[in-house]
Structure formats: C-alpha cells, structure tokens
C-alpha cells in the first residue's frame, strides 16, 4: 500500500507491506518527490509499532496521590468535557485553550479549529507551526498574496541554473531531496549555501557564505544594493509585475558592500561574486528555511530575499523563483485550515466578514457566534494560568516542553493550569505534566491527508489496525464536541471530514474543493488551489499573475536592525540551534526507535573557541544563557564559525536556552540566535554518557 513517511515536510512516498505480523517499509519509486529514496528515519518508521512505551489507555491524574492512573474512555472524556465547561462557566469561553501541531493531518487540523470555534467557542487556539515556517508564511502573504511553500514542484529545481539555499541544511534534514540538487549540478548548475555552519549541504555546494547568525537580511540588502548600483535589476519585470521597488532600493542604498561585510562577516569579494553568479543566469531559485526564518526579524529576512528574487525577475519564470522549504510534516496544510489563531479554513482570515460568513454557513452556525482572533502560540503558552489567560489547555500533536523557546518557563506555565489534557502516542515530556492523557493512533494506524512543502495534497493510508484501547484524534475531537453540546455534529471519518474541509476552503486562497481521496491516489497528489473536480490542480503559481488583487507582487522595504539579544562581555558567543539527521523535532517519536542513534545533545564548537576555553572534543562544556544552562559533550569541528556554537534542539534542556523574543508579524521566536556563555566543565561534573544534564536555571 502506498503512503508517506511520518516525519518531515518532504512527505516521501513509500510502500508499506505486511510480512506476516511485521510491517515493512519498501520503496515507491514512482512518487516524484523522492523517487523511492528515504532517509533512515523513513526506513525505520514502523519502529514505533508495538513499542512498549505506546500508551493504550487514557490516564487521569489522581487528586490524592498525584499519580496518573488508567481510566476508561468514557470516564476520561466525560471528565474533560465537564471540567472544561465548569472552567468556561467560571471564567468565560477563553478560559480554555487549544494547542495543535504542524504534524497533524489536514482533517485533524481542520476539526481541531472547528472544535475550538464551534464547540468551545474559544479564540485561544494556535499551534506549533509558529515555530516552524511562520515567518516565510507571513512574508509570502505580504509579497505574493498567497503562502504556498514552493510555488513549483520540487523536481523543477533540477533545471535551475543557480540555487541559493538560505539557512537550509536539507542534506541532513531531508536527504532524499538532495537528488534534485545533484541533478542540477550534473547539468552544470551551481548551488550557493548561506549558513553559519559548513553543513553536509554546504559540502555539496559550489559557494558557501558563512554569515554571523542573524544577519541574513543584511546580506540580502547587500545583494540588492549591488543589483541597483550596477544596473542589474530586471527593471522591465519590476515595472510590469511588481510594486515597491523604489522604496526597497533606497533602503538598499545604505547597504554598501563594506558595511555588509562589517555586519555579516561575508567579505566584499564574496558579495560581488554572489551577485555576478546571480545575474549571469536566467533560471535562479532562492529558497529559505529555518536558518533565515527563526528570528525576531524572520519575516523581514524572508522579505529581503524575496525582494532579491523579484529584483532579479525570477518569480513566475519557469525553473526560477522563490520558495520556502517547510519543515514539519504538515507544516503547509497545518497552517491552512483553521488551527491558527487568526485564520479559518482555506487560508481565510478570521477578521474578514466574508470569510466568517462562508465558513459559518458550511459549519451551520451563526457567523456572529464565531470568536475573533486569539493569541499566537508562544503568547498563548505564556498566558496560561495567568489572570487573563486560559485555565485549561488541550494539546494535540505537540510537545512544547521540549520544542518551545524558553522551555522551562513554558513548563511552569503548563503546571499552573487547572486542567492540562494531552493527546499523544507515548508519555512525552508534555504528557507527563498532564492531568489527562489520551492515547491516540499514529500514522499507519489511520488515514488522512497532508500537504507537502510543494503544496501537493497527499494521502497517508491506514495500513494496520491500531492497538486496542487507542482512538484517533478525530474520534477524540468528535467525542469531546458531542459531550460539550456542540450545536453541530463532528464526523470522525477522515474522508467525510476532508469533503467538509473542501467545502469550507472553497473560494479561499488554499482552495481544496476539487480534491478527493481518489484523485490523490490516481494523480500522485493534487496541488492546491484546486477549486473544482475538473480543475487539474496548480503545480506552478505566478506564471501570469500574483495573488494580490492587482496581480502584482509587492517588494516590501525592510531594514536590518540586528538580533534581539546581541552578544556582550558576559555572553560573548552566538548560540544557534537546529536538527540532526537521525532525530525529528522534540524526538518523542524518533528517540523511541531503536534503530535510530540517540546521541543526546552535543555542543558543536570551533577549534579556536575550544582552545580559548580549554575544551576538548567529547568532554563536557556548559552553555549558559540568560534563561538556562546546559551541559553536554563538545564536538570540536572546523565547520562552524569560531564565534558561534550549535546545539541540536531535539533533547530536553536545549530550548531552555533559547530566546522568546518574537517576530512582530509571524510571532516566530528567535530560535536561531541568542547570546551565550560557554565554558569547559571539570571532569568531576561530567554527565552520565549520552545524557545532557540540566544543572540549574
């Protein structure tokens, strides 16, 4: 049976085969995104099946002992519903919050948003996608009037002549995508990587620029400066298809190469060479990922690189343009169907009266009964248990105790709730704090659609029966809705929910109305927008027009102001975070798969810095920020800037270091850079092998 990998936004196609009682992963060579290739996360994806840590019964925290005890489903759901209602009666509808995830299927994301707005009538719903690609989403909406990660199929990259990757380490985070890069290079194309680390992706690049963390925007402004100075901007395209160039070039006039060099560390010579490369080819693609986006100026940074793409006349040209490499499995679909605090299904805005009208009609409720916009992810978590904040939280598909910035503070907020309900497969760090834990189905045990980084809607199909005792998220949502006295019914059948989602999205920016499960199976997925059954879907956007009413793209003038927490004498080193190949996100799934190596957190640092600190490869070092401290073994590598350390964020403790400064428009926290102090730890204080130790806060 054909399905897709449970992890990242590439959503690699794979075949699942029953071999006796075992479920085996095999290649699906015809699926064009990965052509049968998988990384070790994909090959081992069935490893959670039958895992001894799988939860199979609801658990309730016993008031007297403080321990979790097993309970029946009815008891658990009745209790949750009645507690939520009590709290809402005491403190209003917004006393209940809902927290979703970018890994949930479209159907779940949709139902969760509907549960919040219709059954709970709370405005307090958001999801962890804010910590993924939200800056790119916000930038794309401003620039193009639409937010689809890639405006073309991934395989289009192969025919580009130059590919610029800003803050993406796809060779490690989505290895099967590299085939397209390799083919581009086999054809004579060139790859540019912008990253403070020389990553495995950079090893395959022709050009590597290693800017100071948090200065990608200054680099973009430097490119724009030279394009204008040297008369190399595509003025005809800018005049015919865009607005805003004049404001942008004036800001860029103040970013001459020597100033860019001082701020970014990228030399004048390197900048000129980059501009020469970009302007001597027609088919140039610029892609951003978390490295550029997870900043307090993330949206501005992406806008700066979109400005570069527009000044070069790229978007809309075949095998050229701008795109974002979304991170989470359903990072794309998860942001389109209403689990975001300011949105309704179909990428409609919740404060738009026409959007409310349409969605309310599909739902069978009065538009005036729909709540307005609520708090964004971090602000929602930060408000928990405060006088004006939610008193209860329902968490699906997320593990914020590990993944949120300033995570220790977030854990404190979660502890202060009257009621925390977590749906998960295993006892994640967040579930461990919950009053009620609901065991739910996973991946191959259920059916549902995802929308990959290309905007291609694909189908994950159920291959095995779930373990006895667990329910799907859709069943949990429907069960709660009914107990909460929802005015309208909730289906727990994915295909029915998808059809309803299609109707709700009809006419919106992300229009799924013409997509159904059969079409997805037959066509290797369908690209939205797809407004009707006879519409072919839209693999490529922007050939004729952009999605703003006037059909033009907007160049938005943005200026580099610097990171929220600059280094200083006490915290002199930049700390940046990211992923490693063998783990995924908070690691709740991947750390429990025996075949995936679990190294624990480590601290990558340059030999010069190691020498300064007296730190040795493999020996413990402590990384301290204004928010927390982590001890982990050093990895001394010359692939990182000497003024920067890197720590992968999959393990508890790492995000206790990161900064909760937010981007003003996407509300993305500044995961990718903060100021840190690093020191070698005496051997006596060495942590037990493989385990990072949180010493103090």
């Amino acid at each position: 049976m054909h399905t897709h990998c449970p992890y990242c936004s590439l959503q690699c196609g794979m075949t699942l085969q029953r071999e006796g009682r075992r479920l085996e992963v095999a290649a699906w060579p015809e699926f064009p995104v990965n052509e049968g290739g998988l990384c070790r996360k994909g090959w081992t994806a069935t490893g959670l099946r039958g895992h001894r840590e799988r939860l199979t019964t609801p658990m309730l925290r016993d008031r007297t002992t403080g321990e979790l005890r097993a309970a029946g489903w009815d008891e658990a759901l009745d209790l949750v519903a009645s507690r939520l209602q009590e709290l809402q009666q005491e403190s209003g509808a917004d006393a209940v919050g809902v927290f979703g995830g970018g890994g949930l299927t479209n159907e779940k994301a949709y139902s969760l948003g509907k549960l919040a707005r219709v059954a709970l009538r709370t405005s307090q719903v958001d999801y962890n996608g804010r910590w993924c690609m939200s800056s790119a989403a916000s930038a794309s909406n401003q620039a193009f009037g639409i937010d689809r990660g890639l405006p073309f199929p991934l395989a289009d990259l192969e025919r580009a002549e130059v590919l610029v990757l800003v803050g993406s380490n796809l060779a490690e985070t989505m290895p099967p995508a590299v085939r397209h890069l390799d083919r581009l290079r086999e054809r004579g194309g060139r790859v540019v990587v912008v990253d403070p680390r020389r990553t495995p992706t950079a090893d395959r690049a022709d050009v590597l620029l290693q800017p100071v963390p948090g200065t990608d925007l200054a680099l973009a402004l430097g490119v724009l400066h030279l394009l204008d100075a040297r008369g190399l901007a595509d003025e005809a395209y800018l005049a015919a298809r865009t607005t805003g160039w004049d404001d942008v070039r004036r800001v860029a006039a103040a970013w001459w190469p020597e100033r860019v060099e001082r701020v970014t560390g990228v030399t004048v010579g390197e900048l000129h060479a980059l501009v020469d490369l970009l302007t001597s080819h027609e088919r140039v693609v610029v892609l951003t990922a978390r490295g550029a986006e997870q900043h307090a100026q993330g949206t501005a940074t992406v806008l700066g690189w979109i400005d570069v793409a527009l000044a070069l006349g790229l978007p809309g040209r075949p095998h050229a343009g701008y795109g974002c490499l979304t991170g989470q499995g359903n990072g794309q679909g998860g942001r389109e169907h209403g689990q975001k605090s300011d949105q309704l299904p179909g990428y409609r805005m919740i404060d738009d009266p026409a959007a409310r009208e349409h969605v309310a009609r599909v739902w069978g409720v009065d538009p005036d009964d729909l709540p307005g916009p609520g708090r964004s992810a971090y602000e929602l978590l930060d408000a928990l248990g405060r006088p004006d904040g939610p008193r209860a939280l329902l968490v699906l598909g997320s593990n914020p105790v590990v993944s949120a910035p300033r995570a220790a503070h977030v854990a404190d907020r979660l502890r202060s709730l009257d009621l925390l309900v977590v749906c998960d497969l295993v006892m994640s760090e967040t579930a461990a704090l919950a009053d009620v834990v609901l065991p739910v189905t996973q991946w191959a045990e259920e059916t549902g659609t995802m929308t990959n980084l290309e905007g291609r809607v694909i189908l994950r199909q159920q291959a095995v029966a779930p373990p006895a005792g667990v329910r799907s998220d859709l069943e949990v949502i429907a069960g709660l809705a009914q107990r909460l006295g929802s005015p309208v019914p909730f289906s727990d059948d994915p295909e029915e929910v998808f059809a309803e989602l299609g109707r709700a999205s009809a006419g919106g920016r992300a229009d799924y109305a013409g997509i159904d499960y059969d079409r997805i199976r037959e066509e290797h997925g369908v690209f939205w927008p797809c407004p009707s059954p006879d519409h072919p879907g839209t693999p490529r956007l922007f050939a004729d027009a952009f999605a703003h009413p006037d059909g033009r793209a907007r160049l938005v003038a943005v200026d580099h102001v610097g990171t929220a927490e600059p280094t200083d004498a006490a915290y002199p080193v930049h700390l940046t975070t990211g992923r490693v190949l063998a783990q995924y996100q908070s690691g709740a799934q991947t750390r429990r798969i025996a075949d995936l190596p679990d190294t624990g957190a480590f601290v990558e640092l340059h030999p010069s810095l190691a020498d300064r600190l007296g730190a040795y490869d493999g020996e413990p070092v402590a990384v301290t920020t204004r928010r927390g401290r982590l001890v982990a073994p050093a990895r001394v590598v010359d692939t990182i800037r000497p003024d920067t350390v890197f720590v992968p964020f999959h393990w508890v403790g790492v995000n206790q270091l990161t900064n909760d400064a937010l981007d003003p428009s996407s509300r993305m926290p500044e995961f990718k850079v903060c100021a840190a102090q690093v020191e070698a730890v005496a051997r006596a204080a060495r942590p037990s092998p493989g385990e990072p130790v949180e010493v103090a806060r």
Partner: protein
Amino acid sequence: MSGTVVVGSGMAALRLVERLVERGHRDLTLLGDEPHAPYNRILLSAVLEGTHRPEALELRPAGWYATHGVALRTGTRAAALDLDAREVELVDGERVGYRTLVLATGSIPTLPPIRGMVRMDGTLHPAVHAFRTLADCRRLDEAVAGSRRAVVVGGGLLGLQVARALSVRGLQVEVVEGGEHLLRSQVGPAAGRILARDLRRLGTSTYTGARAVRLVTEHGEAGADVDGDGDGAVGLRLDNGYTLPTDLVVLTAGGRPSVALARAAGLDVRRGVVVDAQLRTSDASVHAIGDCAEHDGRLTGFVAPAWEQAELLASHLSGDDVTHTGSRTVARLRATGLDVAVLGDPEGARTLPGSEVVEVTNPLQGSHRSLVVRDRVVVAAELVGDLSRVGLITQHYDRGTVLGPHEPGHLLLGPPRPPVPGGTVADLADEAEVCTCAGVAAGAVRRCSSLEEVVERTRATTGCGGCAPDVRQLLAARPSLTA
C-alpha cells in the same frame, strides 16, 4: 514634539530624521545647501569609477519626505544662527525658527597651499577639482572625458579611491603624498610601502614625502597659461623640484569640520563643534552630530559613527536616557585592485602601554597584516593585501571579544585543525558509519560484492547519495574472494 530644524542634509542628518520619524516626531525641517536630496556620499568614488549608477545613490524616494512630515529644503544654505531668537538665518535673509536645532554640516575639504590653484574670483582653477559632493563628482566626471592624465594630491583613503577610480577610467594617474608613506593617518610604513607597490603594479606612481606647491604650465612655467585656456594642460610643481604635467588635479588632502556657523554664533568650538555625551553644544537647544562634531576631544569623519550619533540623538530627543561613549571605526578602502581594512587606530594603539602586536608580512604575496591586542582584545588592526579573514577579525574587534592566547595567531594564520580520525576510507573500522541516511557501517558494505548488492541489502546510497564515492572505494578495496 515639533520644531526640529537640521542644518545640513547629509548622511547624519538623514539618519537622524529617519529615526525621529520612526518615533513619531513630525514638523521636521532639513536645510541643505546641496541641490540634491540626501544621497550616499561615500559611494561617490564608485560613481566616478563607473561601478555605481549615480541614480542609485539616493537614500529615500523623492516622495518620502513630504509623506513623513519632513520639509526638505534643498539648495538652501544657512548663513547665521540667532541663538537668542532661536532662528536660523538663510543666505536670502529668510529666518527659520526652531525649538531644537541640530548642526550636521559635515566637513569641508582642506585646500592645500598651492599657488595658482585658487583664482582671483575665489573659484578653483578649471583643471583643479575638489571631491566631496555629487556636484564635484559630476564636474570631475565630465572632465575625465577630455583628459589623459591626472594628479591626485593626498594619499589617504579618499585619495587612493579617487586615484584608482580615475585609473580604471583609463587615465594615467600619479599620487602626491606629503607624508612619508601612503595612508599615513591609518597605517604604518610597512603597509604603506605595500600599497605603493600595488599601485605601481596597477600603473599608478606615487610621490611620497613631497608637497605640491604651485600650479604652473605644463612645461613648468608660472604664467598666463595656467588660467586654463589652450588645451587645458597644466603642471603641478612639487617642493622637490619636479613638475608633473597633467590635465587634472584632484584635491583629496583631507577635510576639516564645517564649523563656521557655530563659531560665528559663539558656540564652543575647538576643532569641531564641542558636544557632550548627549550631543548637546554649549547651547542646550542646539546639538551637533557627524563630521562637524567634536566629542571628548575626538572628531569622527566616518559614516558609522555619524549614524550612531544620529541614532543616539534621536533617542535623546525622544526622551530616552542615553549616553554617547564614542565609536569603533572600521575603514575599508573602496578601490578596485587594492585590499585595505583599518580597524581603529593601529598607529596610536600600538604605542600604548600593554599593547602587543601580532604581525604577518608576506612581501611575495604583497600582504601585511597586524593586530594590536590589549588584555587579549583586538583593539586595532591593519590588513593590507589579504582580506580573507577580515570578516571574523572585524567581528572580534567590534564585539571586544576576549580571545584565547593562541587566537590572534589563528586569526592571521588560520585555525588549528579539529581532531580528525586519520586514514582513508578503506581503513575505516567495520563499525564506522558510512551512510548516515540509512545508518550503514563500513563492515556492512564490505560484506557486499557490488553496488547493486549494497543498495539491495543495506540501502546505502539511496537516501541523499552522498556516501556513494565512499561506498565505491570500500568495494574497490575489498579483498578479492576468488582464489
């Protein structure tokens, strides 16, 4: 929040106004004597060189000022200040009242004492050019067309930029520098010598330790021809007796703060307009920023500190409690074919007690690099001829990073190698991981006889494909099993 008048509309003035606008100030007036809206002055030499379009100098679109409540008055020269009445008097007699006045009048070029250079009516001889404004740049640009030769007087940053620009434009260029070596206010003699050699290689001769004293005819005679009829050619006589025949003379002998208004109004003026840590002059409602200001006995002369002052003043005028503590400067030569970066004041810093100098000179490569280190912090640096590590050195300088004892050496010579497992792929232990995508160890590959078998049995090479070369090597090094 109203009634702020800024005299001068250069780079400091615009940055101040931008920040004030961001913070909600309105009723701002910019008085600028140049006919243009604010533009990026420091790129004029690139315009001259032909690598920067003049239209790309402008720092804000024409409509920006009016829509943000800024009255921009170009071609408007302030003639006097009336501090008691709080008014600025313009050359045509108009008076402009202010609540807060900011002087951002920049600097004016120093005219070296060269006889015959300034004519009776006070204008420059037609063959002689200053280089400070866009108008100067245009005038020189037009003159380049009919010229073959140029002499640049002053071998500092600006002089070398102009010399290279004219040379790139095809002129035969000579540089006259009164000091003993080029860039003498920035670098030491060793670096200066390398620069002179680089220039010679690029076709430009330099005369150091020589002063231009008199404008004469091409053939060295004082007289009527100097008035610029005939073919326009002149001669520039040096104090060592040489006369350099040329079509153009460009004066780049430095500048001094433009303080005439302030001095006439009785404000405290030394070399520049004296300001305190809030950039206030001796009159509390008058401030000064940029090239014209003197803080703590120091002038600046660069954009970065001018902008820092502008930003600080905007905060101060918005009610924030801020203090100016001085700035770090990084001077970068913008000249095709010459690589120079000067951080801080290396010549001054190296003589201070406790300073240590780490230095690498490579005459073969034509590079000279030195770091002045005090208390393990890079406090100044000169980098000539090799800028490969300028990015990181600048970061450490700007952030005041406390370095390890070996790091200054790493900064110039390259970092130490990280610990690497030695040997080739073929030597890898059986447990060593070869394919990270599929998690395949060397031993598993060795147990296969062909790439096809590796793919089939281990899935190595099927993920990102990055391990394919290593897998091939392992297979090739496999001991042959056939007898």
